[in-house]
């Protein structure tokens, strides 16, 4: 999983959400409520659909965010997390450790496939072949 979670607040505008997504090259941001808990998610797809439906960039994030936040625990098996993503047709799950309202990471389909393929950096170091 990716251990940094990009987050915006429910009162942020879509323009601010777009700036955050673009700056950090991510596909979705977590939306937190004033208490700091996960309240929803806005992905690039949500923004594109909002654009098509005539929303303005000044619209608040809470208007278009998707909720509840689909999540899994750090102790869940990867296979179960993947199953959840495929069944619910989402690209990522947010990951919590103890409190389901406090996300500590993101697990995307890309993360999973990269790990499985052995093309992640940790695996690469174990597969180096020294030749002459």
């Amino acid at each position: 999983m990716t251990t940094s979670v990009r987050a915006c607040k429910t009162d942020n505008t879509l323009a601010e959400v777009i700036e955050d997504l673009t700056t950090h090259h991510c596909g979705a941001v977590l939306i937190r409520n004033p208490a700091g808990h996960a309240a929803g998610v806005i992905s690039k797809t949500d923004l594109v659909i909002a654009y098509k439906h005539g929303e303005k960039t000044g619209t608040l994030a809470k208007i278009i965010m998707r909720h509840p936040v689909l999540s899994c625990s750090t102790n869940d098996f990867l296979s179960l997390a993947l199953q959840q993503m495929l069944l619910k047709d989402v690209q990522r799950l947010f990951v919590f450790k103890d409190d389901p309202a406090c996300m500590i990471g993101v697990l995307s389909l890309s993360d999973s496939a990269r790990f499985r393929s052995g093309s992640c950096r940790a695996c690469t170091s174990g597969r180096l072949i020294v030749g002459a």
Partner: protein
Amino acid sequence: MVFIERRTVLSGMLVQEAMRRRVIRVSRETTLSDCTNRMVKNKVAAVLVTSADDRPVGVVSKTDLIGAFYADLPVETAAADIMAAPPLFCFPDDSLESAIDLMHVRGVHRLYVGGAETEPIRTSSVCSTAIAERAGKVFQRGVASPKTKRIARGCASEM
């Protein structure tokens, strides 16, 4: 001379083994609203823009649409006005790793695959064009940069 060869399960795979064979195309005049429809309906992150003679001329991605949203462009704007051009290509018999390297170097998430029987930029039929988008998105961040490879070679030389 001592060298280090990076090997993963992707080593030896060809682009044609990972690419999608369905390309979603729109014309230059297609509105951004219609582009959105096509992307959502087909669950893709980008559409290929083609000219009147069916030549690929650009790409409109979700990121481009979000940029248009941010700039307050009307949804009736034509795809040609915001597309990224030219589209980048590779061949089906290219190695998957070289295609991923190309995506990494050019900072893109997808390559269009030109049929071996045609010039890449003139690829016109759906059958001979496909997208290695999924592979690119999946593996892009796992690829060592050229700088990393040089460092690895340097370390190997010192061994």
